[in-house]
C-alpha cells in the first residue's frame, strides 16, 4: 500500500514541475467557461426556462458537469503506451501491480488537478457566473458520493479502452472516439432531460450517464427522491461490473503477453 501512496505523491510533484501546461490548461478552461456562459446567455435571451430549468440552474449544471468531466477519464493513455511500446512486459515483472500503480498515479493527478485547477476555477465561477449551491446539504453530500462513483466508473472505463491497445493500432483515434462518446452520452454537454425520448432511453442502459449526468442532476435537483436513489443504485452496479470486466480483460491480455514470450 505504502509504495502506491508514494507513486501518487511523486505524480503530484511531477505535475507541479510542468507549470507551462498548468497555465495552458487553466487558461483554456477559462476560455471554455466564457464560451459556455455567453452561449447559454444567448439561448436564454428570449425565454425564462427550458424543460423546467431556469438560466442559473442550467449554467450551474453545465459548469459543474464540465468540471466533473475533467475527472472521469484516467490513465488509459499511459497504459496504452506501455502496451504499445512493449514496456508492459518489463512492467509485469516489477514488484507491483501495474494497474494499481497507474491508478495510484491517477489519484495523484486528480488530487493536484482538483486543488490547483478545478477548485480555484469553480470559486471564480461561483463568484462571477450565477452558479448556485445545492438546495440542501443532504443533496450536497449525495452529490459528492455520486460524483465519487462517477469518477471511478470513468477511470475503469478508460483503462478498459486502453487494454484494447493489445489489439488495435490507432490509439489516438480510439481516444478521440471515446471522448466523443462520453461527451455525447454522459450528459457532460447538456442535461439528458433535453435529449429526445429515445436517446434518454438508450443512455439509461449505458454506463456513461452514471459518470456525469447522475451526480450533476442530483446537485441541481433534476433527480430527486426515489429517482435519485435509483440512479445511485445504477452507479453502484456500474462500478462493480466495470471493475470485474477490467479484471477479466486484463488477465486475458496478460496471457497474450506471456504466450508471445514477453
Amino acid at each position, binding site marked *: 500500500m505504502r509504495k502506491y501512496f508514494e507513486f501518487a505523491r511523486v505524480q503530484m510533484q511531477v505535475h507541479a514541475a510542468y507549470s507551462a501546461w498548468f497555465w495552458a490548461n487553466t487558461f483554456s478552461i477559462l476560455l471554455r467557461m*466564457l464560451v459556455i456562459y455567453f452561449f447559454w446567455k444567448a439561448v436564454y435571451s428570449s425565454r425564462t426556462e427550458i424543460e423546467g430549468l431556469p438560466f442559473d440552474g442550467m449554467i450551474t449544471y453545465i459548469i459543474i458537469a464540465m468540471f466533473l468531466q475533467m475527472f472521469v477519464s484516467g490513465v488509459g493513455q499511459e497504459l496504452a503506451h506501455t502496451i504499445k511500446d512493449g514496456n508492459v512486459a518489463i512492467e509485469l515483472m516489477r514488484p507491483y501491480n501495474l494497474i494499481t500503480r497507474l491508478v495510484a498515479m491517477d489519484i495523484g493527478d486528480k488530487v493536484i488537478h482538483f486543488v490547483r485547477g478545478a477548485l480555484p476555477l469553480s470559486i471564480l465561477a461561483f463568484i462571477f457566473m450565477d452558479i448556485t449551491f445545492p438546495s440542501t446539504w443532504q443533496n450536497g453530500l449525495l452529490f459528492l458520493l455520486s460524483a465519487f462513483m462517477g469518477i471511478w466508473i470513468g477511470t475503469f472505463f478508460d483503462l478498459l479502452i486502453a487494454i484494447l491497445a493489445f489489439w488495435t493500432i490507432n490509439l489516438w483515434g480510439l481516444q478521440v*472516439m471515446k471522448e466523443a462518446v462520453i461527451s455525447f452520452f454522459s450528459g457532460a454537454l447538456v442535461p439528458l432531460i433535453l435529449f429526445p425520448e429515445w436517446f434518454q432511453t438508450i443512455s439509461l442502459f449505458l454506463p456513461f450517464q452514471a459518470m456525469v449526468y447522475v451526480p450533476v442532476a442530483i446537485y441541481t435537483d433534476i433527480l430527486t427522491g426515489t429517482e435519485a436513489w435509483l440512479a445511485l443504485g445504477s452507479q453502484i452496479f456500474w462500478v462493480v461490473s466495470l471493475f470485474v470486466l477490467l479484471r477479466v480483460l486484463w488477465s486475458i491480455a496478460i496471457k497474450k503477453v506471456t504466450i508471445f514470450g514477453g
Partner: protein
Amino acid sequence: MDFLLGVLSVMLQQFAGIFFVKIVFDHIHALNGWTFYEILFIYGIAATGRSIHHIFFDNLWTLGWQYIRPGKFDRLLIRPINPLFHFIADRLQQDGFGQLFIGIIVISTAMPHLGISWGVLEFFILVVMIIASGFIFVAINLFFATLSFWMVDSLPIVWTIFNLSDFARYPLTIYHKGIRHFLTWIVPYGFTAFYPAAYFIEGSGFEKLALLTPVVAIVSCIIAYWFWNRGLRAFTSTGS
C-alpha cells in the same frame, strides 16, 4: 482499418458538436436571431477550414517536442529546400479527412436553407472563403509554433490559442464586444467561420467585413511566415 478508425473518430467528434446544437435548437427557435441552419453553416465552414489545416499542416503541432528538442530540426536545415516546406511535408494526416467529410456534409445540408440562390459565383466565393479559413488556422498555429525556436517547446501556448477557435463555432454577436474585437483583429478566428458564413446570410450586417476574409488570410500568412523566418534566424545563430 486504422485509417477508418481515425476518420470515424474525428467524424464522431464533430458530430457530437452538431448534435449538441441540434438538441439546444429542439427547445429554442433562434439563438440571438440566428437560425439552426445558419449556425450549422458557420459550424460547417469552421470544420472544413480546419480540416485543410488538419490534413496538410498537422505537423506544426510537433515542432517543439519532435523536431527541436531531439535535435531533428537541424537535419532539415542542411537540405537544399525550404525548411518550412520540408517540415510541413513530413506528414500528411489522414485522420483529417473525417473532418472534411463532415464539414462538406454539414455545409451542403445548411446551404438550401439560407434563403439565397446558389450560382457559380456563390460557389466560387464559398470555396475561396473556406480555403482562406484553412489558411488562417495554419497562420495562427505557425505563428505560435514558431515560439518553439526560443523556448524549445511552445505546445502549451499553441494549444491554448487553438482553443480560442471554439469561440468561432457560434455567431460572434453573442459575445461581449471585447471578445468580438479580439477574435476579429488580434487572433482572427472570427474569419475562419463566422464572417465567411455571414456573407451568405441575408441581413447579417457583416457582408462587407466578410469580403476581407481572403485578405486577412493572406496578411496572417505573411506575418506568420515573417515570424517563422525570424525564429529560424534566431535558432541558427545560437550555433546549432
